[in-house]
């Protein structure tokens, strides 16, 4: 078993890990190791071959692989040490010390003793178990992301007569992709009365190919033994309960599930880092630093992002903060807790901690679609910031940057709440 001393270990080589490692390198951190379990860097972007990435960050439309390649090329120009085909099994922390246990075929087990860690393990898809559809357990039921990988990387089409459950962007994109490859996509079902996908994807992925979007519908039963033969679908009421009498049988050979993503936080849990029940990711301060000083989190492991551009931004922030931590080994000071109020599902960061950096980037989501919302920040009974935003949807993350002037007061109260009021 090898032991090595380094300054920073970044776990996960997707867009978050790549950008965090680059930002730390730019801040002159010396020994950075970037660990990725796959055979190459780039993460989930390699299978996202459609375009639309990078509009915010690069001001041009790139495909997923092209977006990833830019960062992979930049990393290659630095002295960041890259370990692909390497899996992190555990992280541990005690006082200022942190250890990362990683394994691969050539080096066996390596223990990295490190000053700081950036968690960038991404997310995984919810499966059928996570949503509990009754019926048998035949072959032919896949998550949309799995099929995206089969088609776009491995080059095979897993089915011909397809129904997609869930209208998130991955489901919409796969509806088009499978149609182009010659499958018949019978429809996309969405249990909510609105789609979770971008309008652009509804137009270009469904309408272009006359694929029906059935809102307020779900799958209530799966049929077939060895391979799926069909499903029973039904309309649901306002409480998302299937309405008796609306059931209808649909023959299919494939069912795709696009029912949400969950941050991949097994390692985080093992290290006893505090987690947020709503986001499924770590609780962090404005530097994306977790409850363990010197361990940071960014990208989909922290919160499921809909735009990779924001992943990169968040990772830059975490990488720079890790560099400052390595420099000073500072401790976390007084904190202000941030709580989501009316119409707000969650807020990242969940706390602001001294030393305070200014301004602060907030990311959050609404609970319900709203055409105009007023975002308000409250400290005790005093409103300290407000701004209006249009066309708020749960599927689209809201990002705002705020500069505060009254830290003293905020620290005294110790709490900040974010609420959104619908404006008509």
């Amino acid at each position, binding site marked *: 078993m090898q032991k090595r001393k380094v300054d920073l270990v970044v776990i996960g080589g997707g867009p978050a890990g790549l950008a965090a490692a680059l930002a730390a390198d730019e801040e002159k951190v010396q020994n950075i190791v970037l660990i990725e379990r796959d*055979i190459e860097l780039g993460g989930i972007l*390699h299978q996202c*071959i*459609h*375009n639309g990435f990078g509009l915010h960050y690069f001001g041009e*439309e790139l*495909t997923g*692989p*092209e977006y990833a*390649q830019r960062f992979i090329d930049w990393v290659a120009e630095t002295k960041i040490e890259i370990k692909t085909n390497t899996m992190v099994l555990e992280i541990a922390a005690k006082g200022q010390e942190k250890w990362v246990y990683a394994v691969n075929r050539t080096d066996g087990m390596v223990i990295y003793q490190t000053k700081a860690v950036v968690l960038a393990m991404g997310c995984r898809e919810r499966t059928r178990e996570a949503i509990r559809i009754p019926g048998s357990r035949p072959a032919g039921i896949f998550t949309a992301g799995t099929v995206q990988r089969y*088609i*776009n*990387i*491995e*080059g*095979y089409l897993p089915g011909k007569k397809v129904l997609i459950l869930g209208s998130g962007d991955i489901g919409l994109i796969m509806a088009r*992709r499978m149609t*182009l*490859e010659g499958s018949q996509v019978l429809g996309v079902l969405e249990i909510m009365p609105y789609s979770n996908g971008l*309008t*652009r994807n*509804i*137009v*270009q992925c469904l*309408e*272009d190919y006359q694929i029906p979007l059935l809102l307020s519908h779900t799958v209530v039963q799966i049929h077939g033994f060895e391979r799926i033969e069909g499903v029973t679908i039904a309309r649901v009421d306002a409480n998302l309960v299937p309405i008796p009498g609306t059931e209808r049988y649909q023959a299919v050979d494939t069912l795709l599930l696009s029912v949400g993503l969950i941050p991949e936080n097994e390692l985080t849990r093992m290290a006893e880092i505090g987690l947020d029940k709503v986001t499924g990711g770590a609780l962090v301060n404005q530097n994306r630093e977790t409850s363990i000083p010197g361990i940071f989190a960014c990208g989909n492991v922290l919160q499921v992002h809909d735009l990779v551009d924001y992943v990169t931004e968040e990772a830059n922030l975490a990488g720079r903060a890790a560099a400052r931590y390595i420099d000073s080994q500072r401790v976390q000071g007084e904190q202000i807790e941030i709580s989501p109020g009316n119409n707000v599902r969650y807020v990242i960061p969940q706390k602001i901690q001294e030393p305070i950096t200014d301004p602060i980037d907030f990311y959050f989501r609404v609970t319900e679609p709203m055409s105009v919302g007023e975002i308000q920040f409250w400290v005790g009974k005093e409103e300290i910031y407000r701004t209006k935003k*249009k*066309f708020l949807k749960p599927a*689209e993350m809201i990002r705002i940057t705020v500069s505060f002037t009254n830290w003293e007061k905020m620290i005294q109260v110790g709490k900040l709440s974010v609420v959104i009021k619908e404006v008509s």
Partner: protein
Amino acid sequence: MQREVICIQCPRGCLLNVEFDEVKILAVHGNRCRRGIGYAEEEIYHPTRTLTTTVRVRGGVYAVIPVKTIKPIPKERIGQAMQEISSLIVSAPIESGQVIIKDLVGLGIAVIATRRLTEAN
């Protein structure tokens, strides 16, 4: 003639009700700004899309490589374009940006690889 078109020029996503004849737009309803009119005209007479798909690869670490058209192509040519692209087999190694098809279905638009793919060993 009449058709409904969703404008995707901005996140509002207005539902446009468009009246048109063979050559020109007669009226657009439902647009919340002027850009909606230009969009309706494009969508009705010359709808275009950037096509992204994959091409089979011989001898690569993966069986297919992702590609895209360097410019949007007319929407009605997508089916034909897919036929040409899926009948092709290319050999690894391939560089990102490498031209895979020079002139896709006679449109004068190239198809390029969007990633690097090394040879399998």
